[in-house]
């Protein structure tokens, strides 16, 4: 049985190595011939063949009988051995292969090789087998790009930080002489000056100043360019943009009269008129040129009424605006400031947004992006302008006519708003009434004392009756009048 098993393994192996050569082997007659009796001879033959050709021998797993299997070597040899078994010819044992048997076969390879007489082509070794760094050039490029981005992040962040510090150092004295509290982040228990900027971002720095006559406080926001983002840096190479300083002064109610006024570059004013709630409502005309007051052509004016413009454009203000026109983006004074227009999803908001008397200033830092810390000194006169504006806003009062006009304007805006939201407000009032009724009913149901419950129900019934009777009375009266 072991021999049979070994023989089966041999069969499988030969079958996988060459297919065409085992015609004799695959004949059924041959297979039939291999009964048990023949195996003994087969064994002998195999043992003999082992001694004669040891170099081409590979032993199988069940090699107890020292039967060998030849896996390599020419096919003719193996075929020859089997034929020895069948025919029991001793001569063929000694020869490696039978010449007669494979004449045809030898021709075929020759003919096939003569067909393809191609020159030898050296195929490139695939990249992953090359075992060199050069094939990974794209990966190296990617990593280099990332490193460049990180380097730019660090450099940009540091530059913004230095610019912010330079600005603060320049302006610190002026601010400290005007405000009690310079620098506050809102987290300390006591209101003490931190004396430093709040860093909101890698490119935005805030400073809160408070404790002065006329105004509640002043929020200064340094909006630098995103130097820490490489994409932004590359985009700025196409389109230069400036760093900006935005100042928002919140005035006390009693320290500012009611008017809306803006001056700045034409482009900025057009944008503000579209975006800002108060400018769009109160200054509906297009920005006018300021040449009448001596302003350069680059600046335009948006005003609620002519009197405000005349009052604002005094000598000193015109001096400031003319000398620093290149650094001024916009100056916006308003008692109805409520921020940009809010686009609500449900439609119009139900009530007017809260307004605050505010002075807003937007300045461009000189340099158009290529800013150095020393450029911050150029902004100091502008801060003087801000302080002057605060005092001026307190002093400037509209005359009687102006005040009437202003009040009319505000009433008009409110009326328009109410008209627009009439339907929504009605619905809101209705829903509020229903809510109240429901709450009342629920309260009655939840009342534990049955006596109290009964009394409350009675009261509700009386109320309903009264309402119904009033309505019916009105209804009949109306009908009578109509008749």
């Amino acid at each position: 049985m072991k021999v049979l098993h070994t023989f089966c393994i041999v069969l499988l192996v030969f079958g996988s190595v060459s297919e065409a050569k085992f015609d004799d082997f695959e004949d059924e007659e041959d297979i039939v011939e291999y009964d048990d009796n023949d195996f003994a001879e087969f064994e002998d033959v195999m043992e003999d063949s082992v001694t004669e050709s040891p170099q081409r021998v590979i032993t199988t797993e069940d090699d107890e009988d020292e039967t060998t299997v030849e896996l390599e070597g020419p096919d003719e040899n193996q075929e020859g051995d089997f034929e020895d078994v069948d025919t029991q010819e001793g001569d063929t044992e000694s020869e490696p292969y039978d010449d007669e048997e494979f004449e045809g076969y030898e021709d075929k390879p020759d003919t096939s090789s003569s067909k393809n007489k191609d020159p030898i082509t050296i195929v490139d070794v695939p990249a992953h087998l090359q075992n060199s760094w050069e094939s990974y050039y794209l990966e190296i490029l990617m990593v280099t790009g990332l490193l460049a981005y990180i380097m730019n992040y660090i450099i940009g962040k540091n530059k913004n930080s230095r610019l912010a510090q330079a600005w603060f150092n320049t302006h610190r004295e002026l601010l400290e002489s005007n405000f009690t509290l310079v620098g506050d982040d809102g987290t300390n228990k006591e209101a003490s000056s931190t004396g430093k900027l709040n860093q909101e971002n890698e490119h935005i720095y805030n400073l809160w100043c408070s404790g002065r006559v006329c105004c509640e406080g002043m929020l200064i926001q340094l909006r630098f360019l995103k130097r820490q983002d490489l994409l932004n840096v590359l985009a700025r190479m196409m389109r230069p943009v400036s760093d900006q300083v935005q100042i928002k002064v919140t005035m006390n109610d009693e320290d500012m009269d009611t008017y809306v006024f803006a001056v700045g570059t034409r482009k900025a004013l057009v944008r503000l008129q579209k975006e800002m709630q108060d400018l769009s409502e109160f200054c509906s005309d297009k920005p006018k040129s300021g040449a009448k007051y001596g302003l350069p052509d680059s600046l335009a004016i948006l005003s609620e009424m002519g009197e405000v413009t005349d009052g604002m454009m005094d000598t000193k203000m015109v001096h400031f605006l003319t000398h620093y026109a290149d650094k001024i983006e916009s100056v916006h004074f308003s008692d109805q400031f409520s921020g940009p227009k809010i686009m609500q999803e449900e439609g119009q908001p139900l009530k007017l947004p809260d307004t605050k008397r505010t002075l807003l200033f937007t300045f461009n830092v000189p340099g158009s992006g290529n800013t150095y810390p020393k450029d911050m000194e150029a902004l100091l006169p502008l801060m003087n302008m801000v302080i002057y504006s605060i005092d001026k806003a307190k002093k400037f009062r509209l005359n009687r006519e102006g005040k009437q006009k202003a009040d009319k304007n505000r009433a008009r805006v409110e009326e328009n708003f109410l008209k627009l939201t009439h339907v929504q407000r009605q619905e809101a009032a209705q829903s509020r009434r229903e809510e109240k009724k429901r709450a009342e009913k629920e309260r009655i149901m939840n009342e534990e004392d049955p006596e109290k419950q009964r009394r409350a129900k009675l009261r509700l019934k009386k109320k309903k009756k009264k309402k119904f009777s009033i309505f019916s009375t009105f209804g009949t009266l109306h009908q009578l009048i109509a008749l």
Partner: protein
Amino acid sequence: MSTNNMSDPRRPNKVLRYKPPPSEGNPALDDPTPDYMNLLGMIFSMCGLMLKLKWCAWVAVYCSFISFANSRSSEDTKQMMSSFMLSISAVVMSYLQNPQPMTPPW
């Protein structure tokens, strides 16, 4: 009576504390870059992982870096870190599955 120029304009009794502006929907409106980049980064990392595309994974890493650089102060650091880790894992998995170098698409 001192003139206004001589007197100190400071009023310690009128000090108001700083109140951070309420965060309405405006932060997203001002600059949507970090949100877009975050989303793009996640999409590219998933593509890189599922479709075994190395260039997707690399683009995802870049997107998460850009999102981090543009992030607002109110941004959650956990989200940043998670998108960053996802993109790094996409790159690593792509190379583990297929150590061949990336082929340019052209």
